[in-house]
């Protein structure tokens, strides 16, 4: 099955799944006129299907593809998401929210975090009270934000397998070639070191100018061919196992992902239209697999007839996710636990960056720039994830005691010190999670601010009054929104799914 010569340079995507089909769809949309795009995917190999919970950037991605939101929501069983609810992360019984939005609308003489810290000394107030999105989450309300009026955004909970299938249809309709086959080995061009052909188990071969490794944890090419080293961050993020199971859908699904801490990790709950995704993430050094099964079996509506799906992973990344003409996108490039729903974002980022830097033939300077950009993003997300664990006050539990006392990256220590000193929040322009996200976690995890900005010293009671007004306004704005479930397609319009037989049998983290 030697492919005939083509006029256009070729991009071969190894692996389907969320990463493979997102890449194929984006490339078909943007590069389809100029490159021949092929996806080699074996129907014999299952997919991990990362991320059922997303962050708002996915909307930009869908918009770039020209996807209709209603069609997408219906096809993927999606519900809307305004943020994440953290239970028990500070201590047993604690709750806080990380919304996709900002806090307050008023002008203060200093940054909002400083004003909030100052007001809190007079009249204790929860940060959740002064955000429109958090109030909507608490009250299970949802409305699309009105531009220039609302300062929040939204994402989706979706069925990743259905999303991949949706994008596969999209890609095939736009000329992407799909080959159902196993890759047996590759041919390397001796002069450039690039992969020149992918040989298939059935004897065919596919020529490639570019190869995108979307083979998930197997990292067939970036690891198997190029031996790009994987840098483990397990010492910072020790969770390395997950157990996942589906349960019956909720009639009133919340517009948020739930992340509840347990003694050796945390537990997710993701509401979809046709089921609820549940999973337990834990550190194998501190607990065994029984813990996950036990925690899941306590959930209401859980279908114990199906065996739970077990996943094993290590947090970390490859500092070179682009080697030669091979670019790893998705789980083959690195892994960060799904605590902040960043898996699909990282796929998207790899795609965007590659679209910017791609040329007819790989260029070593572009490669270096790509690898630097991806590393920066991974490190920022890593720091943000560690922050959730680092600031816990769950004393007496070995897992949490370790996390509270472990050495952390200097980059994170600097951020914590700056916040503790005077509520200064990270203000970088490159990278995910802007100041409201950091404030949500700093405040939610009980991080104390030592100094109030001296310029606020005479104004604390005025600030406290202002915060009370904000609290009232945010609450009213949230209550003006319709209940979240009313914004979803009517149950009759939802695809009927037999929980015991849904796609690939298992939910995904």
């Amino acid at each position, binding site marked *: 099955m030697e492919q005939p010569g083509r006029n256009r340079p070729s991009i071969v995507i190894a692996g389907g799944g969320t990463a493979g089909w997102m890449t194929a769809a984006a490339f078909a949309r*943007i590069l389809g006129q*100029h*490159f021949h795009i092929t996806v080699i995917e074996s129907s014999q190999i299952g997919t991990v299907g990362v991320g059922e919970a997303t962050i708002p950037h996915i909307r930009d991605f869908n918009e770039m593809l020209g996807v209709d939101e209603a069609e997408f929501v219906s096809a993927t069983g999606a519900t809307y998401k305004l943020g994440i609810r953290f239970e028990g992360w500070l201590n047993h019984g604690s709750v806080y929210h990380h919304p996709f939005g900002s806090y307050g609308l008023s002008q203060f*003489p200093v940054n909002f975090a400083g004003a909030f810290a100052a007001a809190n000394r007079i009249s204790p107030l929860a940060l959740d009270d002064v955000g429109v999105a958090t109030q909507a989450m608490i009250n299970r309300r949802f409305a699309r934000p009105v531009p220039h009026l609302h300062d929040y955004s939204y994402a989706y909970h979706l069925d990743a397998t259905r999303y991949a299938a949706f994008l596969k249809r999209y890609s095939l309709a736009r000329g992407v070639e799909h080959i159902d086959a196993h890759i047996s080995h590759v041919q390397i061009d001796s002069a450039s070191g690039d992969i020149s052909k992918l040989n298939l188990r059935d004897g065919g071969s596919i020529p490639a100018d570019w190869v995108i490794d979307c083979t998930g944890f197997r990292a067939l090419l970036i690891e198997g061919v190029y031996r790009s080293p994987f840098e483990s961050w397990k010492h910072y993020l020790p969770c390395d196992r997950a157990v996942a199971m589906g349960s019956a859908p909720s009639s009133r699904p919340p517009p948020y992902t739930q992340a509840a801490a347990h003694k050796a990790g945390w537990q997710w709950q993701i509401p979809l239209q046709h089921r609820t995704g549940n999973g337990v993430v834990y550190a194998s050094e501190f607990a065994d697999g029984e813990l996950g099964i036990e925690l899941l079996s306590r959930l209401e509506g859980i279908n114990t007839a199906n065996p739970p799906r077990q996943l094993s992973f290590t947090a970390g990344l490859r500092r070179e996710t682009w080697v030669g003409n091979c670019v790893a996108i998705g789980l083959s490039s690195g892994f960060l636990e799904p605590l902040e729903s960043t898996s699909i974002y990282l796929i998207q980022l790899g795609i965007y960056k590659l679209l910017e830097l791609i040329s007819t033939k790989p*260029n070593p*300077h572009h490669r270096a720039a790509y690898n630097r950009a991806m590393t920066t993003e991974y490190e920022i997300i890593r720091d943000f994830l560690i922050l959730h664990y680092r600031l816990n006050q769950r004393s007496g539990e070995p897992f949490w005691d370790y996390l509270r006392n472990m050495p952390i990256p200097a980059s994170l220590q600097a951020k914590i010190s700056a916040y503790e000193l005077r509520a200064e929040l990270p203000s970088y*322009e490159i990278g995910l999670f802007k100041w409201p996200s950091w404030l949500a976690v700093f405040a939610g995890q009980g991080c104390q601010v030592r100094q109030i900005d*001296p*310029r606020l010293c005479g104004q604390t009671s005025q600030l406290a009054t202002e915060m009370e007004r904000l609290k009232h306004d945010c609450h009213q704005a949230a209550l003006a929104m319709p209940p979240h479930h009313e914004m979803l397609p009517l149950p009759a319009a939802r695809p009927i799914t037999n929980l015991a037989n849904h796609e690939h049998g298992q939910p995904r983290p």
Partner: protein
Amino acid sequence: MTNKVLIIGDQFSTNFIATVLRNRITGLDLTGVICAPAPQRIEAPLTNIDKFTALLGIQWQRLVSQGAVELCLAHRFSSAKLTCASATDYFALADYGAAHFIPFEQHYQKVRATGDDSPFSSYCLAASAAALGKFQLPIAADRQNQQRFDASVKFDLDALSPLLNGACDRTVSLIESGLEIGATARHCSLQGLAHPLEFDLVLIAEPALMPDANHTEAPAWIPKFNRDSGYTASDSIDALTTLTAVEHGFVKQVQTRKQLQREVLTLAPGERAQLPKSFWQRDIVFLGAAAIELPHLLGSYTDQLIQELDALLKYWPYTAFDPISERYNQQVRDWYVRYLELQYLVGVSLSESPGWTRNCEVHERLQLFNQQGYWETKEGDILGKNDMIHLLLCLGNLPQQQHPIAAGYPLELSIDLCKSLRMAISQQVATLPPTADFYRWVERSTSISG
């Protein structure tokens, strides 16, 4: 809280610093020591007019009507390295091109490859207007179907300084005793005051007072220039600054309606610039030229002051020895690195001089851009990505390769797009009033409103 502040500098720096502090922090007691009159100098900071006036707390209309500041729309670059027909191009902090699924600069790149030598500024309304002596007030970015039209200011220190008088609670011209740089400066006897005053914080903008021990040698890629300036009566009204590459450096010109300043900046290869080890040391903060004496190929001394004051306002201390000073030092140091990188990019793009050290990170970023037009942004860059691409193209950096999407796009459509945009901008510029009319309008409207 730090309330009692001593400011030491020339008349302009002292008044400028005092005005910003007075405007942004209530309850301060400000004492100014004026070491020298306002120097003869015309400044053209890069800082946007809104930020500039917000810091001072004075509306630009008032500043303009009193002849204290003028508006600046663009920066003219001239160099034999520029391959456009006129060897001159204009950069404005403004939008360029037209909305299209392929970034406009890639169409420009394609069209240039056909031999069309129109400068990049012909695709930017603000730059084209400034080049032809036309003027328009700034337009916000979110207006549809209209390129953003931004402005900064230019001013003669002599003219602006008197408007800033009065921000200090007291001013003197001499410190008699007590100021000991390198130790603490909390008690000072000042000329004409009967009793020594005690201060919480001392702000120094006078370069002579920076102790040698606080200096360190700058990295080799940071150029050092010798500066020589001269003044003549102004011969026209414009909204520009001009930078011309000459054999061993640059000639920079800025003019107000009254006078024209011509600076000759000669590259001093082998000589190293000095950087301060710390900007905030114990109870003393070194600002502006006291911190670093810089070449300003784009921007000015006032940009330094503004950036430092921004950081000082953000990190205003309880006491002078507040640990927050470390955060200040880091932020200001980071800003200077990025600002110096910007100067480097301007300099090395326009000048062939072998005096430039090319083995540095910012040069690698420039090389990357020159390959396929990818600008790798870094945290804290002075200009955003689009403005940076705009600047690099105006400086004559034309990427060698085209992005595959642009390469596959029909050339004739790119040519049509560029041609029609040039025509539309040219027609729109023709309808704008001359810059001189703008000043007449401000004067008239101010006199009508009383």
